[in-house]
């Protein structure tokens, strides 16, 4: 197993390649047969050498042809469907989906991730077991499809600005109403004063209206990373403003106010 050294990791660095399994524009398809990518004849031996036996067998079968390949594709689909079903079931308490819809979502996620995986076999570098790498695709597909489902039955409007809901968002004690009013007023001033229009729109949608990040990314034809980066910058700016106004400590999480 190989690792990126810590110094290579930085949130600020641009990353060109999108995360696998993320293609909101692609319509869900429910099929079993897929056309696999033509295997590269000169797959680097360094990858082959560090593969465990099972992962090497997966790669060999999926990149091959004929009956062994068809059997491997069918087996992989079966595993992906199993993982997708477990994942939608794990998340079901937070979803407004019934049994048949959940199973349909699992089928779509399995089919779409299977297509993505078989089209990206050359991207697998043996840094994990093949199945762990493959399961990532189906987990991300489930996330994307759940985000898409939100807009079919939205529980909130994206621009809704009910700031009185903020205490619920932070799980605050209903008894501390006087404190909330102070907090809401200070936060709202900071949001209005220091955020750009784009940052304000994203902040309000996520924090005040409660739109899920994945759903917001789809609605804005953006992606999770861009939304997170906007929120990251917004949080930093708001905190600096509240610290400058004496509401929050400048160095630690210790609260000065109240």
């Amino acid at each position, binding site marked *: 197993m190989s690792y990126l050294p810590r110094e290579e990791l930085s949130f600020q660095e641009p990353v060109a390649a999108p995360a696998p399994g993320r293609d909101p524009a692609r319509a869900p398809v429910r099929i079993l047969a897929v056309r696999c990518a033509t295997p590269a004849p000169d797959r680097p031996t360094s990858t082959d050498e560090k593969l465990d036996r099972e992962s090497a067998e997966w790669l060999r079968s999926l990149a091959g042809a004929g009956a062994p390949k068809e059997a491997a594709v069918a087996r992989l689909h079966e595993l992906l469907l199993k993982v997708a079903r477990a994942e939608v079931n794990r998340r079901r308490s937070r979803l407004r989906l019934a049994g048949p819809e959940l199973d349909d979502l699992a089928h779509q996620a399995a089919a779409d991730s299977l297509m993505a995986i078989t089209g990206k076999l050359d991207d697998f570098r043996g840094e994990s077991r093949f199945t762990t790498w493959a*399961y990532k695709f189906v987990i991300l597909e489930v996330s994307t499809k759940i985000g898409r489902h939100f807009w079919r039955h939205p529980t909130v409007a994206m621009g809704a600005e009910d700031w009185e809901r903020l205490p619920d968002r932070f799980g605050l004690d209903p008894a501390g109403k006087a404190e909330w009013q102070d907090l809401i007023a200070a936060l709202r001033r900071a949001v209005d004063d220091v955020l750009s229009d784009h940052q304000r729109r994203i902040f309000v949608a996520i924090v005040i209206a409660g739109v899920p990040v994945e759903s917001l990314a789809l609605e804005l034809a953006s992606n999770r990373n861009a939304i997170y980066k906007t929120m990251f910058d917004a949080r930093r700016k708001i905190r600096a403003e509240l610290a400058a106004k004496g509401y929050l400590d400048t160095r630690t999480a210790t609260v000065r106010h109240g």
Partner: protein
Amino acid sequence: MTGWDALDRFLDVDPEDVGCEKAMALLHIYVELVRADPETATERYAGVEAHLRACGPCGEDFEGLLSAVSAEQRQNVV
């Protein structure tokens, strides 16, 4: 926890946070390392860990993949 504590915790950002794209690109490697050696995972992937703590959707995906891999390995043992 007071409301100000909760707000401060929400607004606090970790400069080591690698963001969604890198965290997701490394997720399969990170998950296997978490299962094998959590301390090394924390040491080598502090930025990924910081991100998964702060980002709800990525944290959810991490839990899902960890759960899938754990279930598979439990079945292999039985």
